[in-house]
């Protein structure tokens, strides 16, 4: 809607080219200024670092784990389940591939079980039964000087 007060726009036809250029320039500058203000703002809002913890986590008290036992650790903020068998340590994502609940290790049956929808994975993380669409991703185990570290594969 054009302003209607005191006859704006009535006298303005004196130098239309210059006016037109000036308006164009101010529009462009306003646009640029607007972008210059919003883009950094949006970048600011974008999470700066992937939240939560180191990518290389030590399994605390790994030496006290008996074969067959399991332990939960956070790697890069995500839950990882470490199990020990007679050959050594293995680690799998504890996040069920179905809807993201955390699986538990059932020592007696040697399998992972998801309490939400009864998905079952075998000791290698492969789907045995239930709604899970994919196996549990494996994590890398590294042993340094008797300490056990888990990192993404």
């Amino acid at each position, binding site marked *: 809607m054009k302003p209607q007060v*005191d006859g*704006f726009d009535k*006298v*303005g036809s004196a130098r239309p080219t210059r*006016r037109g250029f*000036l*308006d164009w*320039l*101010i529009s462009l*500058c306003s646009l*640029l*200024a607007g972008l210059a203000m919003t883009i950094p703002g949006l970048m600011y809002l974008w999470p700066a670092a992937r939240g939560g913890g180191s990518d290389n986590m030590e399994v605390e008290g790994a030496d006290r784990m008996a074969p067959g036992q399991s332990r939960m650790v956070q790697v890069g903020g995500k839950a990882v389940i470490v199990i020990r068998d007679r050959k050594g340590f293995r680690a799998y994502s504890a996040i069920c591939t179905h809807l993201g609940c955390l699986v538990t290790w059932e020592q007696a049956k040697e399998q992972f079980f998801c309490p939400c929808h009864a998905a079952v994975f075998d000791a290698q993380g492969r789907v045995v039964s239930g709604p899970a669409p994919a196996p549990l991703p494996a994590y890398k185990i590294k042993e340094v000087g008797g300490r056990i570290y888990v990192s993404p594969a």
Partner: protein
Amino acid sequence: MRIASLIVLPLFLFGGFARICAGQEEAVTCDACHKLQAEPLARSVHAALGCRDCHDGQASYRVSSEEVRRYAAALGAGSAQPRPAPPTFDHGSGFAGKPARKDIPELCGECHANVERMNPYGLRTDPLARYWAGGHGKTLRQTGDDRVAVCIDCHGAHDILPSRNPDSKTYSLNVPDTCATCHADAALMGEFGLSIEVVDEYRQSVHGRLLLEDGDTGAPNCATCHGNHSSMPPGFASVVDVCGQCHQHAAMNFAKSIHADLPGHKGCVRCHGGGEGRHFHLIERITKPAGIMIQRYAHLLTTEPAPSTAQVAEAIHPDPRKIMERALPSCTECHDDIEDDESLPKLFVLLDEIAKAEHLYVETARRLDRVAQGVLLVDAQRFLFEDAKTHLIELAPLQHTLDNSVVGEHVEELNAVCAQVNAELDKLESGLRWRYRALIPIWLFALLFAGACYAKYKQLKALHVGPFPGESNERQ
């Protein structure tokens, strides 16, 4: 008369009875007369002991009240006046009296060398054996000269306090004074052919200043090196070796150096003992002149990272060859032919590198502190710099190998860490530079935008605002 005496004599022989009846005689314990000894004893660690434990005698004596008053006054119960000769008093046949100085070690040893007796208190039982093995004990036993220190000289006689008590004569801060009572006595030490200057040397030394000025009870006192009861702390054959009980790395590295096996060397104190004319007790981190020269050199480096020989000569000493002679006079005792000896320039290179590395370390540390307070996060760099600190602390004992390659290696590691930290800080700071550069386009844009708005303002004003009546001239 005879008959009378026959009757009276038994009365005198058993006179106690008559006196008690008359109220003239009473049963008293030692402290009635010996307050001066009894009171400190009651405050001492031996408060549970009685006089008889050391002096034998009876539990109590029958003495007339008047005598007690006389004795107490004469023995100066609490009075500061010079004591008159103590009145004679027969303590009975079982009384041991004041023990002779030469007998004191064994007297104390009756309990303190008795494992069963000391066990409840957790005290060691070897002090007596050690005492006889040390200088004081040996002299006493061999010459019978009882002017040497016996137990009571260091621990006190009746006023013995545990050495953790700040009032104790054996409390860490008091030990130098306790030793000085004899060892600063010129007449006494002269007779044994000992120097009294060691006391003052110690007080001025790095250890003495730490202990006496800073009150650092962990700093070594006389007994730390000379042993508590014997001449050496356990584990050492000679006092010149004891430095290594604290300065482990320095001792270990010195053991590897070319000087370690020289015959007749005096170990650490050869260089750290204060130099010529001293008695090895003025122990310093480094000989003073060398310290000053290294300081001057480090200062020179702050203005001139790679000084020329001439600049070094001007800042420190006109003759670079003489620097070592001045700085480490003990070196020149053996390395007398400075002109042809290559050891000293080698050492100078070593000290030079260390000084440079220390300077770089300090500069880097300062820079880190400065940057950390600014707008950058330098936690990772600080963490990295911890390594440099380790290397720097390692460097001091490593110098004792006098091996340029070993020290050089560590200096390089230290320099490498500093260089890495500096490089990372450079990188972080150069990351800020784009901000400064961005100011140019920002201002070009702002001026353009503001200029356009200003032009628009003028234009709009001309369009919309008529000249104000009566103001048209003023306002153009």
